[in-house]
């Protein structure tokens, strides 16, 4: 039985209490939801960041996160306070949860075995003698994803012009108990059918959908707009990131007034594709 899953940012944020563990994906960042969490002064969050999500940096800088595990491959990827592992390892840990196992059999470097024995350890080999390394399956409380299109019933899609190579990673959201999605645009059933090849999740697994045009700002949303480089550079240059964030990213009470504050001209200047179409 279909039922309608549209929610406000406030309603969605209520599903992420203090102490929650949150799964984030670089490039698909629901900044409007993150801002709501910060406005509500969330604390003691655990973050799993697939890729160097700005949202993770921001939550860390504002003191909202106690533990951060970041899956990154590049040297330049750095989230203050995070344990950095490779994307392959983090992805494998989430996949293990999706597949119902308690660990992933994956090569783990020495430094991690020492640094995080609760997550990474050596265990006896199974098919040959000797040992193997194992990484613990991860079960985040909530996965939060910013997508392109959604309907009232939890059908979530990327845009027709999207590179679907990210879809496999995004589907690791299924490791989480709750999946919350913000979408650039709410569309009709017919529109969902027309774009069926770009579907992401089983709608039954989606708890709620929040409509959020430009919802990834100031990060990019590849099929529709660039990152707001000017704002991000300014943020990086600050000594006191949290103060900057409070003034420039968290001062508006909601997404509507946040966008109104950015203004039409700025939003258009960031926009690369108005409809996400081919």
């Amino acid at each position, binding site marked *: 039985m279909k039922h309608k899953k*549209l929610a406000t940012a406030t309603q969605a944020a209520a599903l992420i209490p203090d102490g929650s563990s949150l799964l984030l994906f670089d490039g698909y960042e629901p900044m409007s939801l993150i801002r709501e969490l910060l406005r509500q002064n969330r604390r003691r969050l655990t973050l799993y960041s697939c890729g160097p999500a700005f949202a993770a940096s921001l939550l860390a800088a504002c003191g909202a996160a106690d533990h951060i595990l970041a899956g990154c491959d590049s040297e330049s990827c750095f989230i203050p306070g995070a344990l950095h592992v490779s994307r392959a390892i983090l992805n494998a840990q989430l996949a293990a949860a999706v597949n119902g196992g308690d660990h992933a059999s994956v090569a783990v470097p020495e430094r991690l075995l020492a640094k995080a024995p609760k997550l990474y350890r050596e265990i006896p080999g199974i098919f040959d003698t000797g040992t193997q390394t194992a990484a613990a399956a991860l079960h985040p409380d909530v996965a939060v994803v910013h997508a392109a299109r959604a309907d009232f019933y939890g059908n979530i899609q990327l845009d027709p012009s999207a590179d679907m190579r990210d879809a496999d990673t995004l589907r690791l959201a299924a490791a989480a108990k709750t999946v919350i999605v913000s979408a650039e645009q709410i569309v009709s059933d017919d*529109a969902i059918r027309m774009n069926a090849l770009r579907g992401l999740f089983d709608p039954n697994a989606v708890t709620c959908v929040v409509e959020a*045009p430009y919802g990834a700002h100031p990060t990019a949303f590849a099929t529709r707009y660039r990152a707001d480089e000017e704002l991000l550079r300014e943020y990086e240059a600050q000594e006191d990131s949290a103060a900057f964030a409070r003034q420039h990213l968290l001062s508006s009470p909601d997404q*509507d007034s946040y966008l*109104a504050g950015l203004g*039409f001209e700025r939003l258009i200047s960031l926009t690369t594709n108005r409809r996400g179409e081919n």
Partner: protein
Amino acid sequence: MTTSNKKLISLKEAAALVPDGANISFGGFAETNNPLSFVREMIRAGKKHLEISGMGDAQSVELLCGAGAVDLVRVSNYMAKNGRCPNFCRCVEQGAIQTEDYSHFGITNRFFAAAMGIPFMPVKVMIGSDLCEIQNFDNGSKVMEFDDPFSGERCGIVPKLSPDFAVIHVARADAEGNCQLYGITSSIEIIARAAKNVIVTAEEIVDTEEIRRTNQFTVLPSFFVDHVVHCPFGAYPGGVFTYYDYDLEHLDLITRSGKSPETMTAYFDEWVYGTETEAAFFDKVGVRRLMDLRADPYSGVSLRNRRQFL
């Protein structure tokens, strides 16, 4: 013809190109594809004494009549969403503007003759009616009955009509002026091909590569276009298929404001003269409202405005 690297200009620069008294045509059809950002910019610039020839250009003409910018109109049909166009009707009834009435097909054929580089087009419309019998400022140069010299068949002929300027709003254009549009094209390509100077306002500017890749949507080749302007939401409060739906509330606001010169002036003071640029206008309309008007990818309507939203 300007060289290609000078075609992409700003909206204010484009509006400045149109002199007072120009013979100008606007594209569009009913609530779609009207170049209203351009029209608002013309009103800000205080254009006067315009001679307008068009087809489907009701919204543009209604605003310009309200601003007292118009002397002559070649009219086929002007309807607002909910009834007559009050500014246009009042201007006619008070003798402030003069009209010459055509049918849709009749005036489009005048543009078509110019577009095809021929002196006239034969038609089977307008003749027999008062569209032919009653001729005002186009007297003798409007439509006449004519017997086909080959067969003797009675028809009508209409002379070519080449406006000084055509202003058309399209979905996508490249910097060269290749234009793309989704859905119906009304008669914008014919009007553009007829005109001496063509200004294109476009929702998006794309690379020529992109135009080539999707060339089934191209409606006008670049060599007919003199200037290109990036004009997102440039048809607002009308709509553009697959981009955004029309804003019925704002359309009704304009119609209501048209009830008297005073209320119309108040509308312009608040929304046009009171906003120096289109960016300021759209900040006043509100980013949220514009986002709500975005077209559903399938039906083209705003789900919030036209369907039952939650």
